[in-house]
Structures are given as C-alpha cells and as structure tokens.
C-alpha cells in the first residue's frame, strides 16, 4: 500500500492529466478493496483521500488553472474523488456488517434452556368451572346469588315444602348443627337460596346460585361430603316447563358442546311440582359417545317451583310461577374432563389444579 502513496515533494499529479488521475483512482480502489479490516480501510482511506494524497493534491491545483481548464479539471476530479469516497463507504459497510456478525456469533446462547424461574400458579378447575357457569347465566341476564353454608332449617327444608315429618327430609343425609335445638344445618343443597332470593329480591326473579353443599357421605371415588351445586330459579309471569327445558338445554350445550341431547325424566322433589331429573348424552371432541350405550347420564334435578315455596316467600302462585333446578358441579367437572376419582378434586394436591392451569 505504501507503494501507492505519493511522498510529499514529488511531482504532483495534474488535475488535467486524465490518465494519471485514472491511475490514481484505480490505485485507490485497489487499496480499498484489499483492506481486510477496519484499520486497514482507515489507512487506505487516509492514503488515497487524505490531504496529502495524490488526488487531494491534484484537486488543490484546480484553483490555479485558468477558467477554461477549471471546468474540465473540476469535473474530472469530482467524479474521480466521488468514486473513491463511494468505494470507501461501501467497504466500510461491508466490514461493519462482518464485525457485527462476529460479535453476534460470539454472543449466541442456548435459548432452549428451561426458563421457569417464577413458579406458575393455577386455579382449581372446579372454581374455574363455577365462574364459567356463572358467566353463562349472566349472559342470559340472570344474576348470581349467594347464601350461607350454615343455614336455618327453615330455609333448607320448611320453606322448600319439606314438612317436619317429610320422608325426603330424612333422605338428605344432613349434617346438623349443635346443639340439637339450634334448628341449623349445613345446607344439603343450594335450594335454600331460592327462598332467600324470593324474599330479598322479589319477583320477577332470575337467579343462579353456585355454592358449596354438605351431605354425610364418606369420601369415596364418586361421593364427597362437601361438594358444589349450581342452583337456578326463575319466577315470572308465564314461565312454563317449556322454558325450563329450553334453559337447561342451552346450559347443557354450554357445558358439553352442541352435540348434547337432554331429556327430562319424571322425578320427585318436595319443592317442585311437576318435578324432573335431567339426563344427558353427548359426543366428546375426541368422538367418544357419553351416555349413549351405558344409558343416559343423570345431571341434576329440576321442576316447576311448588306453590308452597312461593307462598313461603309471600308470593302469589296464582300470579307468578317459575322453574328451578340444581346440578352437581363436581359431576359436571367429572364428565367434562374425564376425571375418574373424586379424591383428586377434594384433596388439595397441587398437581391436580396445576394440570388445568388458569381455566377449566
């Protein structure tokens, strides 16, 4: 490269010497192209475009030429120096890109390393399902009611047309609250909220009540002493069993998909008349037929609100009537997800909840 540089004092290149200028440009371009590093490029740039470079020196002579020669010399020198400058810039960009590529290559990490420094939490799928159920009823314009778990017997039984000697009152496997005469129980169903809602909200009434209920069943794979129900009660003018069927059919489809078929089967509850149980059959996303070959799946109880229940809340059954229903939420969860053992739901093992993540 030093061979291409012109020492000071040597005969300067004339800005009118097209051949000489062309040679100087070629020499510059060769040196730029040959620069393999940013430092080499810098040296080449200084040698061929610096103040003492032949091209700079030639350029400086333009001022001394007469007017007629200035134009030609200026044109020649402008174009020549422009080519060299451009070449420097292009080479600079190439070398910058190479340098960055090198840096990036050295900074490469293994992005497949497991990064889970903050443990993930989870909702219990039953709670998530309760929210989903509430959302379904809210979408129809219903409201979500609540009631206590330790409940007065009047709300749990008497207001629901279970007289003191009613055989169904004994069928409920009730937890009684001490002392014997407290007249309190752990609610055996969410239905006491029917009377509470009728008394506190009046009619028309469209309320769904998700909640915890209690029966004296030992825990096994299909029973748990503490479980959840979703209660619904709608009381208005002109509601019939057809509205009950329509509502539950939509609810079933929301829970199990559009393939669900529902049927009502006559049953008995003291607080509804006529009464029914709702059965299901459906096809899962995996194509499994549920309730087809093995008989229908029982989902819950329902019926038209008994006039005595309305009377218990001071509502005239000649003017208002309605329907009510209650489904087991655990049962719904079991069917939806193919859970086989109730123990998993109630034991509080984190692995169960974590399997479902944030939603169910």
């Amino acid at each position, binding site marked *: 490269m030093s061979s291409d540089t012109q020492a000071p004092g040597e005969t300067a290149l004339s800005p009118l010497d097209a051949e000489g200028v062309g040679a100087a440009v070629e020499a510059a371009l060769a040196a730029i192209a040959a620069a393999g590093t940013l430092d080499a490029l810098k040296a080449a740039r200084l040698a061929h475009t610096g103040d003492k470079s032949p091209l700079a020196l030639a350029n400086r002579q333009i001022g001394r030429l007469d007017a007629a020669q200035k134009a030609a010399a200026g044109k020649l020198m402008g174009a020549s120096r422009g080519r060299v400058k451009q070449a420097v810039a292009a080479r600079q960009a190439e070398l910058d890109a190479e340098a960055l590529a090198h840096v990036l290559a050295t900074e490469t990490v293994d992005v497949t390393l497991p990064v889970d420094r903050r443990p993930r939490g989870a909702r219990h799928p039953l709670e998530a399902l309760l929210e989903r159920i509430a959302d379904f009823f809210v979408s129809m314009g219903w409201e979500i009611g609540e009631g206590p778990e330790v409940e007065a017997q009047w709300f749990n039984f008497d207001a629901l047309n279970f007289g003191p000697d009613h055989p169904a009152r004994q069928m409920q496997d009730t937890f009684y609250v001490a002392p014997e005469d407290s007249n309190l129980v752990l609610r055996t169903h969410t239905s006491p909220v029917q009377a509470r809602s009728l008394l506190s909200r009046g009619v028309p009434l469209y309320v769904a009540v998700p909640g915890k209920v209690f029966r004296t069943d030992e825990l096994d794979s299909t029973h748990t002493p503490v479980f959840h129900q979703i209660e619904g009660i709608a009381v208005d003018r002109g509601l019939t069993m057809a509205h009950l*069927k329509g509502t539950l059919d939509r609810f079933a489809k929301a829970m199990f998909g559009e393939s669900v078929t529902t049927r009502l089967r*006559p049953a008995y509850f003291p607080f509804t008349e006529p009464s029914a149980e709702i059965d299901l059959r459906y096809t899962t996303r995996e194509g499994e037929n549920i309730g087809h070959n093995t008989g229908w799946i029982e989902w819950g109880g329902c019926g038209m609100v008994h006039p005595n229940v309305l009377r218990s809340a001071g509502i005239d059954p000649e003017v208002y009537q309605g329907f009510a229903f209650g489904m087991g939420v655990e049962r719904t969860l079991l069917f939806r997800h193919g859970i086989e053992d109730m123990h998993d739901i109630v034991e509080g093992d984190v692995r169960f909840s974590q399997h479902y993540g944030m939603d169910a």
Partner: protein
Amino acid sequence: MLIPLDWLAEYTEVAGNTATDEVAHRVMTDLTRVGLEEEDLHRRDLTGPVVVGVVKSFTTHKFGNGKVINWCQVDVGPYNPGGARNPDPAPGTVTESGYRGIICGAHNFAAGDTVVVSLPGAVLPGGFAIAARETYDHVSDGMICSARELGVGTDHAGIIVLDELGYAGLTPGQDALALLGLDQRTVELNVTPDRGYCFSMRGVAREYALAARVPFHDPVALTDLEPGDGHPVGFRDEAPIHGVPGVDRFVALEVRGIDPAAVSPLWLQRRLLDAGMRPVSLAVDVTNYTMLATGQPLHAYDRDRLAGRIEVRRARAGEKLTTLDDVVRDLDPEDLLITDVDEAGHSRVLGLAGVMGGADTEVTTTTRNVLLEAAHFDAVSVARTARRHKIPSEAARRFERGTDPAICNAAAQFAAALLVEFGGGTIVPGPTDVDRRVAPTPVELGAGTPARVVGVDYDQGDVERILTGIGAEVTRLPDGAGWSVTAPSWRPDLTHDVDLVEEIARLSGYDEIPFVVPPAQFGHGLTPAQRARRSVARALAEDGFTEVLSYPFVAADVADTLGLPADDPRRPAVRLVNPLSDEEPALRTFLLPTLLGALARNVGRGIKDLALFETGLVTVGGHRAPAPALPGGTRPADADLARLLQAVPDQPWHAAVVLAGEREPRGWWGEGRPADWTDAVEAVRRVAATTGTPVTVHAASVAPWHPGRCAEFRTGDGTVVGHAGELHPEVVARLELPARTVAGEVDLDALIARREGLVQAVPVSTFPPSWQDVALVVDEAVPAAEVESALTEGAGTLLEDIRLFDVYRSEEHLGAGKKSLAYRLTFRAPDRTLTADEASAARTAATDLAAARHGAVVRA
C-alpha cells in the same frame, strides 16, 4: 325396589320373554319414562345346563368314613352319554345304563323321582362350577341339586324332588332353570318418596300398564269380606299427631288349622328372594309376599297366644316392648301400639303399630291358628316411631310413604288364601273390619292449568283419560271450568292441582314439552364483590399460587394447636351434632387450619416447594340463639324472619395463602430463594391492591404467627382485615410442617366492603421528573412503613413515587441499634418542569417531617 319380571307380568301384560335382558331393558325404559328410575338389572348368579332328570335307579354304598352315598343312574334325555346334547361323553362317563351316573349324598328320594340336575359346565351360585369328577369309586357326571345349592329357598332335608312340589308331565333334559323361574330377570327401580304405592308389584304394574298402554290386572280386585264378629279390635288415640288419628282402618282375619310343618312353595320363596327378602316360614313368607304383591304390610299373630281383645293406642310412660329382633325398647308416649287386653283388663303391648311386632305373639313352628292384621296407620306416626327406635322395617317404609287404606280387607283375603292353599286350614268367616276412614277431599283442576304450568296445550279428553287412568274419579265442573278430581286411595300425594298436572305431563311424556328459552333479562351482571373475589383468585394464581379446596371440618382442639389465646375471637366455633369423624366435629373459623392441612398433605406426597391459596366461607362467632321453628308454606312474620336470619352465624369470605420450600426455585441459573415472611406479606398486599382497598401494614403479635414476624393489615378506618408472616415455630412443630412455613389470611368481605368507590381521574403529567435519593438513619425499632409515611406526608403533592431501595446496618458507621433506610423520591409537577430548588425543598420537607416524628437523621 326389586321387581321380578314374571311377578310383574302376572299383574299386567309384558310382551316377550321376561327371562331376557332385552325385555328387561324395555320394561326399565318404559318405567323410567313415567318416573320409576332404573337402578340395575339383576339375574341370578347361576348358569346351566341345569335340567330335569329322572332317577332311574340307584345303589347305596357305605364307606369307611361312615359316609353313605347313592350311585344314581339319572335320565337327562338328550344330555345322556351319546345323546344329542352330549355326543362326545367325557372319558369315564359312559355308563352301562346309558344314563348319567351321578353320586348323591341325599336320601330323600326314590327311584322314579324327578329331580333337578346340574350338568358339567353349569356354574351354581357362589361360582361353584360343576364338572365330571371322580369320587367314591365312580365318575360323578353332574350333581343332583338341593334348593340351597340353587340359591333358592331354605334348605329342607335333601334334594329337590319335583314330583313333591306338584310338578308333573316333565321331560328329562328339560331346562330346570326356566321351570323354576331361576332364569327370570329382576329389575331394580328407584322409588321416589311420593310414590309409596310403587313399593309393590301392584303399584309398579299399574305404572307399567300406563307407560306401555297395556291392561292392568289388580291382584286385590276382590270383594271385601263381610265383616262379622271376628277378633274384637278397638282404637283409642288420645294424642293424634297433627290431628290425624294413628289408625283409621284395621282388618283382623283368622285362619284356623294350618299345618305347622307346611313350608312355602319353591316359586314363592324364589320370588321373595328375587325381591330381596329371605324366606322364613309359611306364615311369615305369606305376609311378606302379600306385602310385596299389594303394598299392604300385614302382621301374623299366633291367635292362641292373644290374651284378649286388641286395642290400638299410644304408649304410656314407662312401657317397654321386646320386639321380634329381641331388642327391649323403651316406648315413647307418641308411639302407636298394638295391645291386647285380657279379661282382667290388663293391657299387654304386642307391637309397634306398622313398624315391628313383639316377641310374645309371633308365629312359631307350632302355630296352627293365625290372626292376620291388615291395617292403615298414619304415615307420620309410623315414620316417627321407626325413626325413634331406628327400625327401618319394610312395613314402616311403606306406611310412612302412605299405603292404600282401601285394600286392607282384600289384602288380608289374599294372604289368607295363600295360607290355606299351602298350609291347609280354613278362613274364619266374618272378619273384624274397623273402618274409620274419612272421605277424601277432591282437588279442583282448572281447565287451563295444565297448559299454564307445562306449556303444552293438552287435549281435554286426554286430561280426563290420564286422570281416570291413574285411578282418579274425575267430574267436570260447570261451564268447562275444569274438573273436580278425587285422587285414588293409593295416591295420598295428590293434594294440589300441580300434582295432577305432573300426572298429566309425565304420562303424556315429558318429551312432548317443547324447548323454549326465556327472553333475555336485564340483569346487572356480577356484583362488585363477586368481581373482586374473582380478581383476587386470578391475581394469586398468576402470582404463582395454586388454588386448592379443603373441607371446612376441624378438630375441637385446633385453636390450642395453633396457640390461640383464650379470648381469641377465632376460638368460638360452630360444632356439628353428627360430624363425619369425631376427630373433626367443628367448623373452621378461618381458612388456615384446613389450608395448612392441604400443605402438609402435599409435603407428604413429596412436593416441597409450595404456594397454595384458598378462598371460601368461614363460620365465625360460634353458636347463637336457636333459630325459630316455623312452618313452611307461609311467609314468616317480619319479626320471625329477622330472628331466623339472626340465628345464622356470620360466614364471611376469606382468602388465605401458605408457602413452604422455595418461592423461586434453584436452577441452572443459580440458587433459588426460600419462601419467607415477605412472600406472605406480599401476597396479602397484592390481594388488597386487587380489591382496590388501601391497607396499611403494622407489626403485630398474633397467633399462629411468629411474634416478631407477623404483619397486621388495616384499612383506612382502622379495621384489622388480616395478618401475614412466618408461622410460630411451635405451631410449625405441632403441625409437622416444613420449617419456616409462612402464611397469610385476610377477610375478603371486610376488605371489599371498604374498597374505594369509583376511581376518579388524575391527569398524567408529561413534564420531566426529578429524582432525589435520601438515606435516613433511625432506631432499629422504628417501622419502615412509618418512616415512609412521614416522608410521603412531608414531601407533599409534588411527590409522584417513593421506593425504599436499601436497608443498611453497620455498628461501625451507624452505631448499635440503628439502621439506614435509603429512599428514592420521584417528584414531578403537573404543569411545569421542576427546578432543582423546588425538588430539593420538597425533599427537605420530607426528611424534616421524618426527623421530627422518628428522629431520622439524614446521612451525608
């Protein structure tokens, strides 16, 4: 309720073979449609070949062990060796006689008798497989069966001899299972409490006839026997329950001269067994059979052991009775009794009416004269007595659901006829029939009511057909207004018009009802509290906590275990009368006791790093004044309603967290971080922030927390809403939890109730901030929260943010018992760029207040 199908078919018409699953399924489907839900399908644990055989000859052999056996040649028709059903006899089974050679240990038969033979391949009850086997010097190629071996009836001496049972014209090789009904299917139904009449073949047959639209043949469609001067019976009820007399009908029918040795026929025993009852003796079997057939419970007395006239009355204080099950029972004045009164006027208790008889007058193996009782007792009275004495007898089960008072006389005849048929003797004419029944009240059904309730416009003729079909008397009201309906005597459940509507709807078919979605309502969506609870659960889950559910039951000494002081408000707990486990008789007053249980269970399963949360109701304040007992069907007076609501304990929503092990796990990136008190405090702060309720944090010393590591959370009005921190090491030890387990719990209801109202806008300043760092030296005992609060207050409105970024202790530089708290204060004005002077003036104001309140010294 177990329904042997051949029995059902006797009272109605069941098409097809009742010994097939196909017919059984069809029957169950039909019954389910009208409300008798199918539970199960049963068949006997018995497969053939079990065939009719004729003992052609036998020889008797005595063995050294004293055993005497018979080597029998039994003609089993096509099953004989080489016959059509046995073309390739097993080795050693071909006999000279050409019949089957079978060893038999019984001796109650003779040559020529027709018997039941299980052949190789048959499996008898209990999984007893029959095979040809060598025994007593012969190959026994089958087994001659006793009733017990076939799982039917009591074991009387020896094998079944079909000739003695009245069978004739049988063909060797004929299927004996079909002959004896052992191939019949039995369906099991769930009978709801309103349909007591379906605890009988009669009732179920009636339902089947309605469901399948086939005829019904009433087994007790008998003319009542003319009452006469039978055994005297009187009623005396001074204390009717709810004003209903304990008994309103009592038929006593006598059968004299029964053979005490007579036994029930095999078919009757078989039907009892299929229906779930054990055969006992002829008299008992007949009463049970009649009860199953008709629904009318009967009692059989040994007539000769009755001392005198029968009186039905309530018990007197102190009276006792030894019931049939040999239990001595103290009677309650509410118990309705059957008694007899001798000539001296002495009264003896014979039994608990409708529940269980006494030992004194039961029929025995010597009874010749039987007095049959068929009565109608009040359902409530029987239910209370059965419950009081814990006797869930078959009779009580039926009476408490309501029996048919119209059939007492006929049912007694039905039973008497069976006794006479199988035990000999004669029916004494002129039975006692004390009949005090009250005429039933008709129910009015409006013409439009069925359509109004069900949403189906039923044809008026169909309504009348259905109501007549269930046995009701239907008369039209004038002007097409509807009907006056008198319910049949076996349907005490039909008391309201809607009860009749259900009959119309179910027998027309619920499938006929259309699906109609009610119009959408104008609701308010979730309440703010409901939304806040959802947000809390989601925030905790997203912060790495796993939601679990725990049962609310706790041990009686849980408060001691957790070290709660004697006056702690969480001590008074509601207890249960009948807890599932005596170990856990109380309800939790806060969530931690049961949530810590879940933590321990997870640890026990090998999971070490845990962050759990639960939200749920807790029951606080313990027991209150009892709730008033009020009747249903009428709105309680306001005062009563208030007492009712007041009696229910407070049950606020709580949220709780527990953590153990590493909060941030160790990994390839380096060390983990163990969960500590800060995580519990942070979780509760996050819960409060999620609800939008400002809380302040204070040092506290509350069980079950470490006294030096317990934070208390207060809302603006000073209400304490929760605590968090590290658990007391003694509590950790007692509960066998991981060391340094931390926990927090907050009253969500209290928190949510105090949340700030609708958030009002604050303009976002676009001017640059000014950051000022200060380090303050204070005494160790000064809580950081109070220093921060002084700085915040002193800094004034220009303060945008304050963060504690360092806590430093050094005896050398600060002196003993001192700490340095370093804060970054961010100042910003809404309308201008702050000057350096303004910012430092604000900082100085902040530190001055901290100095004044807490002696804080600004570190140079």
